[in-house]
């Protein structure tokens, strides 16, 4: 009897609690409002495989609501032409995100997209469908890169034109670079002292353009060592670099008329690993004490180890690299450093061939275009900011200068393409 009263009291107590909380659960679990302004665009400049979707966030998608009313959005798509196709889920961007790229489209197929907002307990909003189907189209030419194509044509064209001009006998003067003049002296010194020359073509493989540039410099240095009858050692960190370097040095010795001096064992492979390689090379430097060390190619942290060890054995060191992070160390530790572009110009300088010097003029032309464009852009932006100072930025038609500076930044130097 007492137990029954107790049970009744418990139920009477719990019932309102349960119903209130139940009501509140029911009240809280409302589906979120749907997103608005749903639109789709073909991604420009692609092979017809992607479509971009944009929408305005659901009004329930607020950042400070707790618990969140919108957890994610669900995007589905179906083929517009196919009567029997159904909407299939293709992606679920999270809350506060209002774009999505569908990268699995087939070119030329019209698609319809649908978006729903999903809240607590997987309750979904009303689905919003596109008004009209969108087609991903294949572009044969990426128009976003049209201005970039202009740059490529201009720069490559100028290099080619100047090479042609140089071939036809026009004399070209170039300024002196101290490091390159020093190479001959360094090799001569090594011959006098009876010590070897060491050439390190970087630690990257032949698929790095810096290694290719280093190998072309090796060809010139090898001709010099062949002339002077100095010993040249080329330890390499990659098998393919060893192969290419052997061909290069052999050719250089042949063209210098000293094929018998060529010893293919002087160009050898050590190990691919950066620090194993440099441990071996520095050990060799300390034991064999080369009189001239050349570091030409792509280097990473080991650059300083090589340069400092070379210093400790008293070698003349000439370095060249296009790794901006290693330039400070070479500049601090080596006698001469070819900085960035000078490194790429080195083989042209050393060969002295007119057509190679012509390519240098092409590079200068590229710098000229770049510099003029930069200054023009800066001047236009300056004039534009003077003109529109003090004017409220919103609700104004962009002035001529503003649109000009925008065009330079977004289209000429950006991905805007011709517009």
């Amino acid at each position, binding site marked *: 009897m007492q137990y029954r009263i107790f049970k009744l009291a418990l139920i009477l107590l719990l019932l309102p609690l349960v119903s209130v909380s139940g009501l509140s659960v029911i009240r809280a679990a409302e589906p979120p409002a749907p997103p608005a302004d749903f639109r789709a665009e073909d991604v420009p400049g692609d092979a017809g495989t992607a479509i971009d979707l944009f929408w305005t966030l659901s009004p329930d998608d607020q950042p400070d609501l707790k618990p969140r009313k919108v957890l994610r959005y669900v995007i589905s798509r179906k083929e517009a032409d196919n009567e029997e196709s159904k909407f299939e889920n293709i992606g679920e961007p999270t809350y506060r995100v209002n774009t999505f790229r569908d990268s699995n489209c087939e070119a030329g197929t019209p698609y319809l997209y649908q978006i729903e907002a999903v809240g607590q307990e997987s309750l979904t909003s009303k689905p919003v469908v596109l008004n009209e189907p969108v087609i991903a189209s294949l572009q044969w030419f*990426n128009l976003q890169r049209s201005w970039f194509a202009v740059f*490529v044509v201009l720069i490559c064209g100028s290099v080619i034109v100047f090479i042609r001009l140089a071939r036809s006998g026009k004399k070209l003067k170039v300024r002196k670079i101290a490091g390159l003049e020093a190479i001959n002296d360094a090799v001569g010194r090594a011959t006098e002292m009876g010590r070897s020359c060491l050439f390190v073509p970087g630690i990257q493989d032949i698929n790095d353009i810096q290694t290719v540039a280093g190998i072309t410099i090796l060809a010139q240095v090898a001709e010099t060592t062949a002339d002077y009858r100095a010993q040249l050692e080329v330890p390499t960190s990659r098998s393919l670099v060893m192969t290419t370097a052997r*061909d290069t040095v*052999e050719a250089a010795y042949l063209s210098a008329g000293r094929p018998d001096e060529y010893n293919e064992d002087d160009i050898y492979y050590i190990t691919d690993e950066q620090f*194993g390689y440099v441990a071996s090379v520095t050990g060799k430097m300390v034991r064999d004490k080369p009189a001239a060390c050349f570091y030409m190619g792509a280097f990473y942290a080991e650059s300083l180890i090589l340069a400092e060890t070379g210093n400790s054995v008293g070698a003349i060191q000439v370095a060249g690299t296009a790794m901006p992070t290693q330039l400070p160390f070479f500049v601090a530790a080596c006698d001469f450093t070819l900085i960035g572009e000078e490194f*790429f110009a080195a083989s042209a300088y050393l060969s002295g061939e007119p057509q190679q010097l012509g390519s240098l003029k092409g*590079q200068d032309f590229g*710098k000229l275009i770049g510099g003029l464009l930069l200054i023009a852009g800066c001047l236009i932006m300056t004039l534009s900011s003077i003109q529109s100072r003090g004017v409220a930025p919103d609700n104004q038609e962009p002035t001529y200068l503003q649109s000009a500076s925008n065009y330079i930044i977004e289209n000429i130097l950006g991905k805007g393409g011709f517009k």
Partner: protein
Amino acid sequence: MKRTIPLLISAITGFVLIGTAFIPLFVDWGNIAMSWFNLLAAFAFILGGGNLLKMQLQKISAQQPGWGYAAVTLIAFFITLFVGLAKVGVHPNVKFPEFAWSGDYLQEDGVFWWLFEYIFTPLSATMFALLAFYISSAAFRAFRAKNTEATILLIIAVIILLGRTYASVWLTGWFPDEFIIGESGIKYSDFNLQNLSEIIMEDFTTPGMRAIKIGIALGVASTSLKVLLGVDRSYLGSDQEA
């Protein structure tokens, strides 16, 4: 003749890949070519490894000074190679235990893993750490300011170095936070070492790096064209038989 076909191959490949950069349907060809390169480099190990063996064996057979170390290199090489290729000590993949060789070659507790963890990694890390000594000796020697350029290098390096450590707070942290001239926007504290370091990095280092990169880009373009047009064909070796 021996160089003509390779030159043609090189030129056609290069110019095609330049063109495909602008054609969306073929824009991936460059990446595919580079992934093939990794395979070629893997096979090229036969050439490099063969050369390594040949050099060390020559040293041993000619009894050159230091031939003992060549023997050590060979022994270490062969042990590692065998252990890695045969996956010695590697347990099979938990999902497919009946396939004895399905485990990862670098699985913990395998012999190859032991060599990697206790020889390869510590030795690499130690060589890397040697840089601390080398950078100090380089700084000590190079910054004996012999000319204007070295002086600038030295002063800037000292400012940045101090600015990145606690010394900057101790030395210049007391610069007041007030404006120098009325509303000019410059405060005394802008000249403390920390802020000075930031200003140097943003306003002086960045333009320098940008100009270097611009120059490098043009140098790369020029080198690439010389290679593709055959103006610089030294990498291909010679036309004649040696």
